[in-house]
């Protein structure tokens, strides 16, 4: 136990009867989840968890209200929640081995992934829509480890980032302030991003607990879903999405009800797309800057220019040691920085930035080895080594799409020297080992890689290889 425990923070800071999660009515679905119903469900789960092995809770729920109830129930039972977007059986098995006493939590009777695994699991009952709780809102120590959120398993090894309850609450409160969510007019949040991804967790699971917002639990993936979800929610509406889905929504030309604000993250948004969306829907498009390591830390209105402004209470300072090392390589612009955010230890940012002042910056670009697709990061060297680890692959390389920053559907390209293997076989092997978003659109089999006498692959040779493979895909 820490010598000076931090303050206690409420599990949720919403009025009794406030709607936290909204879902489609009718049919077999239940209604909205209010503060009372949420507390009753979380308390019930905590009691159930008390009878399980005292390990962490692997939160695999699909429904956003259930994801939140899972987190809250685990907190009340003194358990840590694990959030991972990677559902591959091998990764879930590895997690269970590393976390003795782990309990998998689902909200569907037939979870195909879980059924194939031998994990102790618990299935949440449907969310009560009328239950109320007269009990006072419980508090949780701010310094309690609440969750471990994993980055994507792009290179075979997702990395877990530890989040204290204080850090999670602080970021929700700051986001609410930045996006001017006010109690007099609670916002309807429709999220198209998975709740187990850090961005989705912050905006669609945690936000409703500490800010005047109700998160949509129905489907919101295809353009028609998103339009129907927005129409089913009262104004003011906030759409939380990605550049990919924004582009699809624009192209689909479906009619949307008035949307107060659109929030985009996971990849840079093309300012032209932002401008088109603002004109079409008479709204404001904001981008959030963040990473699983630190969560959301800054925002900008895309059409207003390239400058990011940090969230209230988030400050950036130069990372002196990293910059000293980096300065040994000439012509590297920008700075490495440390992120200072409430409830979290100072964290070094992966991106080099131009720092105007501690609250304002511009991005310079990512490291050459880092590729980001569909909101997930991977190391090119890591992907290449996975390819080369396949039995029968003598040599091989992954190439990143050249336009991944502007074209969300861009995909990796892989070249392999593998005389005894078909391209399909290599792809099947890769599928078992890497995040689907980094699977190459195709594996090009070639007699040999154009290595020079030093064994390196010169940029020009790689460009030729790329051109031979068919060059750029159409946008």
């Amino acid at each position, binding site marked *: 136990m820490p010598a000076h425990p931090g303050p206690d923070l409420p599990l949720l800071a919403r009025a009794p009867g406030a709607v936290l999660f909204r879902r*489609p009515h009718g049919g077999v679905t239940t209604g909205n989840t209010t503060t009372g119903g949420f507390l009753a469900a979380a308390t019930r789960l905590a009691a159930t968890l008390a009878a399980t092995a005292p390990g962490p809770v692997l939160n695999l729920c699909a429904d956003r209200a259930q994801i939140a109830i899972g987190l809250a129930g685990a907190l009340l039972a003194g358990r840590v929640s694990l959030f991972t977007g990677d559902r591959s059986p091998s990764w879930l098995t590895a997690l269970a081995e590393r976390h003795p006493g782990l309990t998998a939590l689902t909200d569907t009777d037939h979870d195909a992934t879980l059924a194939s695994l031998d994990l102790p699991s618990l299935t949440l009952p449907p969310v009560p829509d009328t239950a109320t709780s007269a009990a006072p809102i419980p508090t949780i120590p701010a310094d309690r480890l609440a969750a471990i959120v994993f980055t994507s398993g792009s290179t075979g090894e997702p990395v877990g980032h530890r989040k204290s309850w204080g850090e999670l609450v602080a970021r929700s409160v700051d986001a609410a302030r930045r996006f001017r969510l006010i109690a007099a007019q609670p916002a309807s949040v429709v999220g198209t991003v998975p709740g187990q991804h850090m961005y989705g967790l912050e905006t669609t699971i945690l936000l409703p607990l500490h800010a005047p917002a109700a998160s949509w639990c*129905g*489907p919101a*993936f*295809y*353009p*028609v*879903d998103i339009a*129907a979800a927005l129409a089913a929610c009262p104004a003011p509406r906030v759409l939380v999405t990605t550049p*990919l*889905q924004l582009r*699809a929504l624009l*192209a*689909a030309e*479906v009619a949307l009800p008035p949307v107060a604000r659109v929030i985009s993250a996971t990849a840079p948004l093309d300012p032209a797309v932002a401008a088109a969306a603002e004109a079409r829907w008479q709204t404001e498009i904001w981008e959030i800057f963040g990473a699983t390591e630190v969560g959301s830390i800054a925002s900008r209105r895309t059409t207003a220019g390239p400058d990011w402004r940090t969230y209230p209470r988030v400050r950036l300072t130069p990372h002196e040691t990293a910059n000293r090392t980096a300065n040994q390589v000439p012509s590297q612009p920008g700075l490495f920085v440390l992120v200072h955010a409430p409830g979290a230890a100072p964290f070094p940012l992966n991106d080099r930035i131009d720092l105007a002042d501690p609250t304002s910056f511009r991005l310079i670009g990512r490291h050459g080895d880092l590729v980001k697709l*569909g909101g997930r990061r991977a190391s090119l060297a890591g992907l290449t080594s996975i390819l080369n680890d396949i039995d029968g692959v003598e040599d091989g390389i992954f190439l990143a799409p050249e336009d991944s920053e502007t074209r*969300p*559907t861009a995909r990796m390209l892989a070249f392999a020297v593998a005389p005894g293997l078909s391209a399909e076989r290599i*792809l*099947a092997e890769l*599928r078992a080992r890497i995040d*689907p*978003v980094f*699977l190459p*659109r*195709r594996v090009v089999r070639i007699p040999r890689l154009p290595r020079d006498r030093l064994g390196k692959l010169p940029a020009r040779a790689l460009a030729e290889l790329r051109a031979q493979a*068919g060059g750029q*895909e*159409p946008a």
Partner: protein
Amino acid sequence: MSARSATSALDVARLIIASLNLDLAPEAIAPDAPLFGEGLGLDSIDALELALAISREYGLELRSDDARNRQVFASLQSLTDYIDETRTK
């Protein structure tokens, strides 16, 4: 009664290949092989692209609360059948 002819699986295969830029001949997509996961290896990003192409070509909107959604995307044949039933152009 609609005057148009039945939707052809080969046409749908061509649409899949064109919209996702796959390096395949339309005949190479087996009518009953899974489109996602193990079979053709498509993922959710592809589903979004494909939905857009289908809506442009056939005037029908895919939605994820359709209970049949998983079944619709199960194979080229099931997708073709679904398009044939619900297309508006």
